[in-house]
Every structure is written in structure tokens, then in C-alpha cells.
């Protein structure tokens, strides 16, 4: 676990939180944040696609089914529990369901780095799972909100929202570059890996510094969410991780692969989901979903969660 905490990535995140609590004037220009996001999505997609080209259909089919199952079911119970136990309004519960059902590319990358650090192998095609798991949960959550709630006016249809999400920045880059990675093979991959592979962890370090800056500001909103939100923000990922590892095991993934599927299930989206919620669920309060995803679940996952899920996977695989 110390290895995980003492990685430059995690420490950069903590430094970001500290900087923000000290009211530092450190600020990433918007366009740097956007550029880092574009880079990470392309890099994840390309490498995943290239590795997918080395796998057979049989290897991928069952894990893919497990991944889809996870991201379609998670929003259902997250919504129900948030409504019942959390007493959240329909839009707030739906927004939380969207975030927890979808996945975080950065948490995913931290999990890869963790496994590479420990020298534990995993299936190279895992990034294609990430690409598949991003959108469905958001759509399901928005549909849930629509069925339970009539907003005043002029809403887009679910079909329109689906189209927008698929053409949305993050899924377009992820899916597009998985396909490009699949198509270009080894020669193509080697042409671009000096940009998209070698400096990857460094870029991730930069991104996490920025994430820490925002998470630090959100810490002040913790009290608004209350203890309940903190409890949810820790319990949900643990439950989802266990479920994900178990399903991954059933689907025939290796120890590393199953852990990473668990991390995907446990992670909460904070690139695609917040943007989608701002447009499709504007009545939901960002204080809840951003605080939960960015200030509770995300740090929990990268600091405590990933090593914990790894221990659990070791236990389950023996």
C-alpha cells in the first residue's frame, strides 16, 4: 500500500489538495486541463486498441459481457439506494447514479500504474472495457430521471442524448482511438508510442495535481453533503469493486485483470458524467455529485482502494 501512496501520481494529487487548502494561486490554465484530458483519452485508447489487436475474440467476449453487466446494473441500485436511504431528490439521485455507474479513466490509469509497479500482469485489452463502460450508465441514469420526474420544458429525447454522449469528447476519443490502435498494428503503435506511451505516467502526474487542486476546494462542500455522502462515497466503491473482481474472476480474467475490472466498477466518472449531468440534469446539485466523485471516492480509490482491492483479489483467487 505504501508503494501506491508514495507514487508520484498520488503525491501530486495530495500536493494539489494541500495547495488548494493553502489558497495557493497555483492554477492550471483551462486549455492545459483540456489538453491533458485529450492526451490521456487518446493514449489510453490507442494502447488499449493495440493490445486488443493481440487478443482473440474468445478472450475478450466474457470479460466484455461482465463489464457491460456491471455498468448497466450499478446505476439501478445506486439510484434506488440514493432515493430511499439517502433521501436525495430524483435529479440528484440520478446524477449520482450516472457518476458511480460510469468510470474514471484516471483511476483506471492509476490502477494500471499500480500493477505495473508491482510487476503484476493483466490483460492488455482492459482499456477497451473502460471505453465500453463509460456511456451506458449515464444514459440509464438520465432515463431513470425522466421516468420519475417531469421537468418544466424543452427536454432532449433520450435518443438525442445517447447520440450526444456517443459523439461526446471522451467516448469519441476512447472508442475512436481503440479502433485506430486496433487498425495500425505494431508499426503504427511504435510510431506514436514515444508520445503516447512513454511519458504517460508523467502526464498522469500533472493531471492528478490539477485534480487535487479542485478536490481540495470541494472538501469545503463535504459538510453540505453530510456524513451520509461520505459513507456512500466509500461504501459504494468497495461493494462495486468486490462485485467487479468476482465477475472478472468468473469471466476468466487474471488476478490483475479482475482487480482492474473491480477498480473500473468502483470508480466514479468525473469527465463525461459531470458534463452530461450539467446539460441533461441541470436540476441536480453539483455540490453532491462532484464532491462525492472527486473529493471522496476518487481519493479513496487511488490511495486506499486500489491496494485494498488488490488484497481482496489475491484472497479471492486463492
Amino acid at each position, binding site marked *: 500500500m505504501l508503494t501506491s501512496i508514495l507514487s508520484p501520481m498520488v503525491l501530486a494529487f495530495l500536493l494539489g489538495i494541500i495547495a488548494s487548502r493553502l489558497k495557493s494561486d497555483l492554477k492550471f490554465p*483551462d486549455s492545459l*486541463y*483540456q489538453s491533458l*484530458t485529450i492526451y490521456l483519452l487518446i493514449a489510453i485508447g490507442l494502447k488499449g486498441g493495440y493490445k486488443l489487436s493481440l487478443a482473440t475474440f474468445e478472450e475478450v467476449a466474457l470479460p466484455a459481457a461482465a463489464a457491460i453487466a456491471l455498468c448497466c446494473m450499478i446505476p439501478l441500485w445506486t439510484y434506488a439506494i440514493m432515493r430511499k436511504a439517502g433521501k436525495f431528490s430524483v435529479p440528484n439521485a440520478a446524477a449520482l447514479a450516472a457518476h458511480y455507474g460510469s468510470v474514471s479513466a484516471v483511476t483506471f490509469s492509476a490502477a494500471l500504474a499500480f500493477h505495473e509497479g508491482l510487476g503484476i500482469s493483466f490483460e492488455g485489452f482492459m482499456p477497451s472495457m473502460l471505453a465500453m463502460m463509460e456511456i451506458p450508465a449515464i444514459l440509464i441514469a438520465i432515463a431513470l430521471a425522466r421516468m420519475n420526474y417531469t*421537468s*418544466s*420544458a*424543452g427536454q432532449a429525447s433520450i435518443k438525442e442524448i445517447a447520440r450526444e454522449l456517443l459523439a461526446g469528447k471522451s467516448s469519441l476519443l476512447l472508442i475512436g482511438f481503440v479502433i485506430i490502435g486496433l487498425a495500425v498494428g505494431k508499426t503504427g503503435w511504435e510510431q506514436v508510442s514515444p508520445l503516447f506511451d512513454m511519458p504517460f505516467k508523467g502526464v498522469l502526474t500533472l493531471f492528478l495535481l490539477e485534480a487535487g487542486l*479542485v478536490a481540495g476546494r470541494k472538501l469545503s462542500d463535504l459538510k453540505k453533503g453530510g456524513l451520509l455522502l461520505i459513507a456512500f462515497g466509500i461504501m459504494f466503491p468497495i461493494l462495486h469493486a468486490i462485485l467487479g473482481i468476482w465477475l472478472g474472476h468468473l469471466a476468466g480474467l487474471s488476478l490483475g485483470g479482475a482487480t482492474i475490472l473491480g477498480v473500473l466498477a468502483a470508480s466514479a466518472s*468525473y469527465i463525461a458524467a*459531470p*458534463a452530461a449531468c*450539467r*446539460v441533461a440534469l*441541470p*436540476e441536480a446539485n*453539483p*455540490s453532491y455529485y*462532484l464532491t462525492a466523485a*472527486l473529493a471522496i471516492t476518487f481519493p479513496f480509490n487511488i490511495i486506499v482502494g486500489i491496494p485494498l482491492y488488490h488484497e481482496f483479489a489475491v484472497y479471492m483467487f486463492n
Partner: protein
Amino acid sequence: MNTLMLLTIIAEENLAGPIEEEIVKLGAKGYTSSAVSGKGVSGVRDNQWDGENIKIETIVSESICQTILNHLQTKYFERYPMIAFYHPVTVIRTTQFT
């Protein structure tokens, strides 16, 4: 005589596309947009997680100004963090705007 209205709309950045299209459909001959951040009753909007704002300015006749405002009010105002306001400005030749 050369007086028209400068209507300013400040809204969630993701609404830029639709709003720009709609104000042109409602009669505006052009618009000018820029990225801004801000704070209002719905909270702070100055980072990519909370979202940031777009400021759309359009010079239009008073009647088109009202048409646009009515449209925004029904479609967006209730649901989205957003403000709009207008004031008269003098332009050089009105033909470019009406």
C-alpha cells in the same frame, strides 16, 4: 436612429452551440462569444469540473431582442444557471444588423 440593443447572455458553456443557433434562427444577424467564468445563485463556475460559462453578445433590434428573451425564458431560464440583460448601443450602419 442607429440605436439597437446589445443583448448579453451568460450561460453554461455547453449550451453555446444550441443558443447561438437559436438566436440566429430568431433573427440575429450575428453574435460574438467568449469564454468567461463566474459566480451566481447556482454557485461557482470557474473550472472544468463545475463547468464554466459562455458569454454571447448579439446586436439586434428591440423586437428581436424580446423574441430571443422570450425563447430563452421558456426553454432555459428555469432549468439552467444563466442570466441575460440588454442595453442600447449606437452602431455605424444598422444594415449589418437588421
